[in-house]
């Protein structure tokens, strides 16, 4: 088998394992989903906004719920590897350790995207908008991709800390600010009917964040995990 095929197979094996563990335990996605729905309900009933104001806030609320839910998922994902030393098992294997990063990052991306796809129709129902727009889906994929790759890297960084559950959001939220701003602006623009040309800069910023955070994972994941 060629080295690159082996690399992809390792990534797929980690994703497959994470999906299987999630299917058996059902402790990640359901919690993320319930948490994000609670945020939607709380904002909806607490703010009692007029339809005009709601339209402007939909994108922001969507990304706030996704960011919080994704952070829960990232914590769960890294704790899963830590609780019985399974991360050591991954690091002992004769595989490129950056493939472990991409495997974990891809699992987190898939789980958060799944939550986002469930959230979209619920948001649409509450805020009377059709959110299944191809450009919005693209913004979601790029934004979630950048957020989860940065989150996976920071979760690995915080794994040795005693305060890891608190440390992850403390590190992640400020560093993910460019991603969240670009994702909210791109989504708001799509919802309000702006063209892709007008929103190009936000999409490019999201793409740049995706490339930057994945490159950082490729370069630093092994160093971060070695004691």
């Amino acid at each position, binding site marked *: 088998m060629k080295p690159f095929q082996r690399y992809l*197979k390792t990534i797929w094996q980690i994703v497959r394992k994470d999906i299987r*563990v999630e299917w058996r335990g059902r402790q990640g996605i359901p919690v993320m989903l319930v948490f994000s729905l609670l945020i939607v309900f709380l904002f909806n009933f607490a703010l009692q906004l007029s339809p005009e104001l709601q339209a402007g806030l939909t994108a922001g609320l969507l990304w706030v719920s996704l960011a919080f839910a994704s952070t829960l998922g990232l914590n769960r994902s890294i704790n899963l590897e830590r609780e019985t030393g399974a991360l050591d*098992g991954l690091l002992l294997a004769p595989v490129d350790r950056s493939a472990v990063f991409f495997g974990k990052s891809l699992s987190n991306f898939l789980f958060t995207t799944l939550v986002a796809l469930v959230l979209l129709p619920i948001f649409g129902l509450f805020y009377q908008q059709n959110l299944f727009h191809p450009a919005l889906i693209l913004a979601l994929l790029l934004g979630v991709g950048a957020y989860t790759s940065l989150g996976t890297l920071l979760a690995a960084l915080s794994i040795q800390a005693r305060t890891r559950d608190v440390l992850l959001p403390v590190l992640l939220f400020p560093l993910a600010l460019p991603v969240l701003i670009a994702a909210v602006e791109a989504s708001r623009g799509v919802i309000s009917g702006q063209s892709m040309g007008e929103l190009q800069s936000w999409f490019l910023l999201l793409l740049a964040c995706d490339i930057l955070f994945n490159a950082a994972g490729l370069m630093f994941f092994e160093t971060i995990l070695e004691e």
Partner: protein
Amino acid sequence: MQPAGIEVRGVTKRFHHQPVLDNLSLSIGDGDICVLVGANGAGKTTLLRIIASLTRSDSGEVIFGGTNTPMDARRAIGYVAHQPMFYLDLSAAENLRHYARLYQIPDENEAVNLGIQTAGLENTWDKPVRAFSRGMQQRLSIARALLHDPTILLLDEPYTGLDQDAAHFLDEKLHSLRQPGRAILLAAHRPQRLLTIASHIAWLKDGKIIQHLPVERLSESPELVNYLQEVA
């Protein structure tokens, strides 16, 4: 086939500026079982983790059967640590299959079946590991470490928490594993049980190996004999 063996050369490791291992050197030959003794906190686990390439040393190197490339080293090593390294919601067979795939074992079904037999878990192979006792988890952990037929086997306090049956299982396993083409390093705080199995004993104290000799020459080191009596 290259001879198995571990050579640790001048390894130093500090945590928070405190030296845990201080220019430590140790050589374990092909076919040897070396038991590493030392007080709690002496650095036994740190040394094993450095050999397993899980912890980076500040200086020095570890050479395996003539090579020190990380990927070859990891392919050669089987490691039984304090923690079992399993996903608790997956079954024994699913956990072994996961590792078989990571190690790119050509016939993963055969390797998994052999692993289940090695661990004596034929009746519980499909049960989640969460439901296993400490002894069952440790047996599965040993099967996991042997899955890719490693030439270097590292075991960290392997008898901790084992009942009599599981400890007896481990005795038999270690006897069967002592053969040319494999080198075994076991860390133990109370090593009496291992002295009947081991070929060599190494005493780690103050970050250095202060004694390293064949077990049959143990009587030549009264200090080590005294230490072993103290911790018995």
